[in-house]
C-alpha cells in the first residue's frame, strides 16, 4: 500500500461557522495505480488532493504515505515528503515566470540539495523525456500552454517521486495539447509511476484504471452513487 487515508475530515472556518468540506474519507491507493478523482466544483476534490499532496492538513483522520504518518510530521519533514515523494502538476502550471524551463524543472532538486551540475543534467533529461529538449532555455512566457504543462510534468517527475498528483492537468489546455499531456501520463503510468489526477471530464477520467467520485465531501468508488443517509464507501 502506497497511500492510505483513514477517516479524513476537513472543515473550513468561515466567520463563526464551521463548514465541512470532506466527510469521513477513506482511500487506499496501491503502488502503480492510476486513479482519477472526479466531482463537480466545490465538492472538495481539490481539498482532498491538497491533503494527499501534504500541502494541507486534515481536521482529523490519519494519512499514511509510503509508511510515513503524515499527521505526525513536523514542518521540516513535511518539506522532505513533498520534495521526495510527491510530484505536483497544477491546472495553471505554476511555473516561475522569470526562470528558464531548465531552471524550473531543476527547482525541486535544488531543495533536495543535489549538486548544481547533476541538477542541470537531470533536468535536461526530464525535458528530453517530455519532448522539449529544444526549449531548455525558454522562459515560460515563450512557451505554449501544452509546452508549459509538459515542463510542469518534467518538474513534477524530476525528483523521482512515489506519486504524481495532477489537479485538472488539461483544464487550461486545448484538446490537442491535452491529448499530448494524457499520452505523457500514460507513458509514465506504463513506467510504473503512481498517478492521482483530478478531473471533471469523463473523457480524461477514462485514461485512468480507477475512478473515484467526490460529491458533497463524500467519496464514492467507481460508478456508485450517493445514497441518502451517507452509506460507507471505500
Amino acid at each position, binding site marked *: 500500500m502506497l497511500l492510505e487515508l483513514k477517516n479524513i475530515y476537513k472543515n473550513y472556518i468561515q466567520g463563526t461557522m464551521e463548514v465541512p468540506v470532506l466527510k469521513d474519507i477513506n482511500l487506499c491507493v496501491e503502488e502503480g495505480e492510476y486513479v482519477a478523482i472526479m466531482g463537480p466544483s466545490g465538492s472538495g476534490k481539490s481539498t482532498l488532493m491538497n491533503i494527499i499532496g501534504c*500541502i494541507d492538513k486534515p481536521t482529523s483522520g490519519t494519512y499514511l504515505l509510503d509508511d510515513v504518518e503524515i499527521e505526525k510530521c513536523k514542518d521540516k519533514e513535511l518539506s522532505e515528503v513533498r520534495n521526495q515523494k510527491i510530484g505536483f502538476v497544477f491546472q495553471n502550471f505554476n511555473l516561475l515566470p522569470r526562470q528558464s524551463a531548465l531552471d524550473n524543472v531543476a527547482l525541486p532538486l535544488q531543495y533536495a540539495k543535489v549538486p548544481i551540475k547533476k541538477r542541470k543534467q537531470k533536468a535536461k533529461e526530464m525535458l528530453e523525456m517530455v519532448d522539449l529538449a529544444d526549449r531548455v532555455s525558454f522562459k515560460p512566457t515563450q512557451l505554449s500552454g501544452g509546452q508549459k504543462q509538459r515542463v510542469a510534468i518534467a518538474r513534477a517527475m524530476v525528483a523521482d517521486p512515489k506519486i504524481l498528483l495532477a489537479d485538472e492537468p488539461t483544464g487550461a489546455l486545448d484538446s490537442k495539447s491535452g491529448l499530448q499531456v494524457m499520452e505523457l501520463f500514460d507513458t509514465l503510468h506504463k513506467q510504473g509511476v503512481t498517478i492521482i489526477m483530478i478531473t471533471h471530464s469523463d473523457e480524461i477520467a477514462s485514461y485512468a484504471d480507477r475512478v473515484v467520485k467526490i460529491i458533497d465531501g463524500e467519496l464514492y468508488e467507481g460508478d456508485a452513487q450517493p445514497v441518502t443517509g451517507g452509506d460507507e464507501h471505500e
Partner: protein
Amino acid sequence: MLENIRLSFQGIWAHKMRSLLTMLGIIIGIAAIIAIVSTIKGTSEQIKENLVGSGNNIVNVKLYQGEWTYTSGDSSTPENMPMVTDDIKNEILAVDEVTAVASYRYGALYEGINSGTKDLGNAPVYGVDKDYFRVMGYTVQTGRLFEDQDWTNYTKGVILDTVAANTLFASENPIGKTLEIKGEPFIIVGVVEQIDGFTPKVTNMNDWYTYYGNTSSGQVFITDVNWPLIFSFDEPYNLVVKPAGTDAMTNAGKKTADIMNSYMPATSSENVSEGGTDEDSSSSSFKYKSEDLLETAKAMQEVSASTSQQLIWIASISLLVGGIGVMNIMLVSVTERTREIGLKKALGARKSVILMQFLTEAAVLTSMGGIIGVGAGVGLAYLISDVASVPVAISGAAIAISVIFSMVIGIVFGFIPSVKASNLNPIDALRYE
C-alpha cells in the same frame, strides 16, 4: 547562496524603478555619511598639515617665563641659565626622535634696526649657532650664509630674510650694505628664505606674536657670539630640533625640554626676582617647554571630529528611513509573490530556504544601494571640496563600513518580511489570488 544572489538580481532587475526608489534612502544616507567623513577627514588632515607642516617639521623648545616665552630685551636677563654646549647638543642628539638640533637667541627691538633712513620697525633678531639655518631649512637667496670664521672672528655680519630685504632695499641688492642694529653697524652678507611654505595656524596671542607679529617686517640673523653687542651677556638660548618624523614631534620636543630643564638652576626663580615684586617672583620661574604643534593639531582635530560625529548621526536618520522603506517594499514583494512562495513550498522548499531567499534579496538590494551611495558620496565629497575648497580624504574604512552597514540594514529590515514569507501556509499561498 550564489543562486539566491543571482535570483535577487533578477528580481531587482525585474522591478528596476521600484528597486531604485527603494534604494534611494540607503543611497542618500550612505552618500551623506561618506561625504561628511571624507571632508571631515580632509579638513582634519589640513589642520594637521597647516600646524605641523608637511615637510621640514621642526619643534621649537623655548625658554618660558611662566606662560610667556622669554625675549631678550623685554626683561632683565635671568642668571645661571644653561648655555647650550656641544655636550648638551650631543645629549639631545642621542634622543631617538631627534635628528638635528640648533640653538638660537631671540630678541625683540622695537626700534633701532635701520639701514640709512629706512627702518625695519620691530623686526625680531636671532642670534644663531652654526646649525641653525640647516635645521630650520633656510637656503641662500643671495650672498652667503655665516661661515665658521664668522664665529671665531666675531665678524659683524648680518643675514636678512627675504621679507626684511624687501622692506629695506626693495629691488636693490642688499649684499655689502650696512645695517645698524641699536647703533652697531653690521654688514649684510646674505639673504635667506625658508624652503617649506610653513603656514602655522594661530590659536592664541602668543602664537600670533611668534609667527605673524614677527614676520610682518622680516627677520634679522646675526651670529650668537655677537649677541652681547646688542643685548646683555649670558642671554639664555632657545632650541630648535628636527624630529625623526611627524609622529616623533611630541617626544622630540618633550625630551629636549627635559634635558634643558635638567641643567636649570634648582632655584631659578629666586635669581631673577631681585627687585621684582612678589607677584613677579611667583610667575617668573623659568622653564624650557616644547611648542608642540602636533598636540595643538590633535586638539583641533578632536573638535572637528566631534562636530562630524553629530553630522553622521543626522545622516544615519536617512539610513533608518531607508531601512523602513526597504521593509515596506519587501512586505509588498512577499505579498506579490505569495503564489511563488506557495509553489516553492509545495515543491519541497523548507522554511529556511524561503527565509534565506528573501533575506538575500533585501541584503543585495541595500548593498547595491550602499555601493551606489559610496560612489555618490565620493562624488559629493569632491564637489564640496571644489566649491568650499576643503581638501578631501576618502576613507577606505568608511567605505567598507558603509557597505557592510547597508547590508546589515537589509538583513535587519528584511527580517520581518522574510519571516512572514517563510511562515506562509503552502495551501493558502497557492490559493492566493
